[in-house]
């Protein structure tokens, strides 16, 4: 994967970063997907849980590092071979956490369609901002996946 630079709207994205940072902080202590280790001993389950948490923290740190001085001056974030997979994983974890902790009232159908129009009147301002983060992180994933495997994203459309 070559280095890919993406120009984002600072005005649109900057307000989302506080929420994304807050959710990333929550993910320092909570795995995005519950550990499923049927019948394992407690020690193994504990090691597994801690390893997942550490991996999740590292990935979220990589994603947050995208929004550095260059982003706040030029609006540019860059993906390359070194950070693409970590940002993909972090986006997945953040979206799952947003769904479970801040968008629990939205239906699966609305989330899957990435369409909040039908429920905009029913959700509050915090939920609208959380949904904006949810959609933004999906777009980040879409961009990276497009460059990792250009044909794959067509399946989602």
């Amino acid at each position: 994967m070559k280095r890919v630079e993406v120009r984002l709207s600072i005005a649109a994205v900057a307000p989302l970063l506080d929420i994304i940072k807050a959710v990333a902080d929550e993910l320092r202590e909570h795995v995005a997907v519950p550990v499923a280790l049927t019948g394992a001993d407690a020690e193994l389950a504990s090691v597994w849980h801690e390893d997942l948490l550490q991996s999740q923290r590292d990935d979220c740190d990589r994603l947050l590092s995208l929004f550095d001085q260059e982003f706040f001056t030029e609006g540019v974030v860059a993906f390359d071979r070194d950070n693409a997979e970590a940002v993909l994983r972090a986006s997945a974890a953040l979206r799952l956490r947003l769904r479970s902790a801040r968008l629990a009232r939205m239906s699966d159908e609305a989330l899957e369609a990435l369409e909040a129009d039908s429920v905009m009147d029913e959700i509050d301002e915090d939920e609208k901002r959380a949904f904006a983060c949810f959609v933004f992180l999906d777009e980040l994933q879409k961009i990276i996946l497009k460059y990792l495997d250009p044909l794959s994203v067509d399946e989602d459309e």
Partner: protein
Amino acid sequence: MSAPVETKIAWRVVFLNDAVTRMSYAVMVLRKVFGFDEPTATRHMMEAHEQGRAVVWTGLRENAEAYVFSLQQWHLSATLETDEKG
């Protein structure tokens, strides 16, 4: 002396659908973790999408656990199953 019974029990890695994960992301992860080709990964993804779950691998418990761990590192929901009754 025969090998321990545990080593002969087949365990299944079951990939579970969720309403959040992008389809192309799930396909990429299934390819990366299991080495599936594109059609196989897509078939498993669609099965999970339509039926809620898909058995994506069967074999020894240790390997199955490693696969579930890898899927969870990518934040895909997965679980282990066996026919053996505890």
